[in-house]
């Protein structure tokens, strides 16, 4: 597909086409990132915000961070949360896309509208509804679970212990993310040519063979991109955790990396340390997803 290279066009054209994108990225991301790298190696606290010079401390911020068990606990929790949530999101999303592909038009449209509605919910609005659903006294979730014989969920406080707190967070994130995965995968599925599938069927390929031999290789690039993005997004869940903490407890047991950085920046006003954690988050993100970046690059070079 990408072999549609045209060598007759002027050499300058691609650079001209890239100017706006590169320009906005340098302003909106490049400069802040550079500032952050420099600040992560400075002592940059409250005094520096009022104009005091920031002394360069090289890697001291990072060394201090590495000696904090609380930091490592947050890192471990965040990675576990991110991988579990992204994995389940991907699985459910792909299954729903296959379901959309398998059913008649009416059920497909109903499912699509339902997913679009969930997808379109602004995060803040969605969080507000979910907190209401999980409300310990009058929430619909506890009421419905209580109807199951032998289950007593009356006034069960989901946000009280970290384990159930993160289960709730994970459910909400999966609910919000699955539509994107399902629609992207479904779009990939519709690109699979009917003629090829019919030809394979005439040649005696079983449904299983058609799926693994034709459909899966065709949608693999979409799935790879989508999974990469899920990992990145789930590692930096911030609004969801913050709002659940608003409704529950702000204690550090309930922190993931996003809220950890935020508290470091706002409560302690320690921009140097907050920048250092941010840079580490970036490093973890790249480590986690480097395999996918590489496969995407290979895909791109084909």
């Amino acid at each position, binding site marked *: 597909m990408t072999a549609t290279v045209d060598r007759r066009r002027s050499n300058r054209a691609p650079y001209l086409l890239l100017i706006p994108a590169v320009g906005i990225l340098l302003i909106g991301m490049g400069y802040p*990132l550079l500032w952050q790298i420099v600040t992560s190696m400075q002592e940059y606290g409250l005094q520096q915000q009022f104009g005091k010079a920031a002394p360069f401390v090289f890697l001291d911020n990072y060394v201090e961070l590495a000696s904090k068990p609380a930091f490592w606990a947050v890192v471990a929790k965040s990675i576990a949360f991110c991988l579990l949530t992204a994995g389940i999101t991907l699985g459910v999303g792909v299954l729903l896309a296959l379901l959309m592909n398998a059913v008649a038009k009416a059920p497909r449209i*109903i499912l699509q509208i339902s997913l679009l509605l969930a997808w379109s919910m602004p995060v803040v609005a*969605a969080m507000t509804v979910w907190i209401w659903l999980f409300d310990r006294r009058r929430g619909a979730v506890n009421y419905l679970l209580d109807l199951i014989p032998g289950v007593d969920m009356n006034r069960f406080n989901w946000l009280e212990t970290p384990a159930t707190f993160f289960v709730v967070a994970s459910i909400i994130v999966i609910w919000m993310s699955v539509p994107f995965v399902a629609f992207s995968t479904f779009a990939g599925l519709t690109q699979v040519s009917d003629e090829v599938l019919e030809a394979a069927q005439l040649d005696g390929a079983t449904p299983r063979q058609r799926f693994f031999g034709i459909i899966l290789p065709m949608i693999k690039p979409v799935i790879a991109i989508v999974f990469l993005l899920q990992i990145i997004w789930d590692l930096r869940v911030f609004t969801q955790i913050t709002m659940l903490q608003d409704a529950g407890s702000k204690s550090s047991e309930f922190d993931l990396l996003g809220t950890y950085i935020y508290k470091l920046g706002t409560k302690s006003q320690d921009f140097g340390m907050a920048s250092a954690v941010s840079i580490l988050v970036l490093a973890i993100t790249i480590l986690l997803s480097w395999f996918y970046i590489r496969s995407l690059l290979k895909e791109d070079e084909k």
Partner: protein
Amino acid sequence: MRARTIRGLWGVLAIVIALVWVFPVYWMVNSSLLPNVTLQSFIPTFVPFGGSLTNFSAALADGEFYGALGMSVSITLIAVFFCILFAFLGAVAISRFRFRGRKSFVIAVLVVQMLPAEGLFIAQYKMVASAHLLDSVIGVSIIYIAAVVPFTIWMLRGFVAGVPADLEEAAMVDGLSRFGAFMRITFPLLAPGLVASGVYAFLQAWNEFTVALVLLPSESAQTLPLWLRGFVQASATRETDWGQVMAASTLVAVPVIVFFLIVQGRLTSGLVSGAVKG
């Protein structure tokens, strides 16, 4: 016959999943219509019989709503327009050309896409503040465009690559200029991709919370998500009035839902017809 029955069963499953998935959205609207007295009951009311719009008028009576609405609309329009424009040009560059620096750009796009917004907000605050653009539409828009452009380039790159250059060549053989061929042949085939990217950019800008929280510190320059959070917090100081809070949530979500229902047909039919087969 048997195949049809199985297809029917899958259809039933799809509808059941659809109902489960949409339930929180339904619950928001349902609760928004019910008076607080009903919501205080320990047995939930599943259908809003005898409901009213009182909660909505109470939420709208909050003086900040219309300012927040204007702010959100301006920022979203600017972000969507420039994001699609910049990303489209970038996608054409990387999918139709091989040039020195292309790979670096592709890697840069992938890496930038990963930068956690929550990890850059301090630096972005510093930058926007020193440009005297805090509480302004422009400051937030710049950050939003930069945040959304990388993924949009990726999305569009696939769509541009999916349109065979041969089609364009054929049109040129038939006498169209290169630009004409691009506009008449490639561009219409890309429409589904542009719609999908536009929807993505719209969602990101309309729903964004963290950057807005940092770059719009003043109460008179809130976007709708900030307004909603403020409204919830104000309500939580008393016993939370869930009816009013759900009405406020509905007000924030409604423009998005309306937009989606308009675009939905084009989105799915565009994606379904698939430019490749054309």
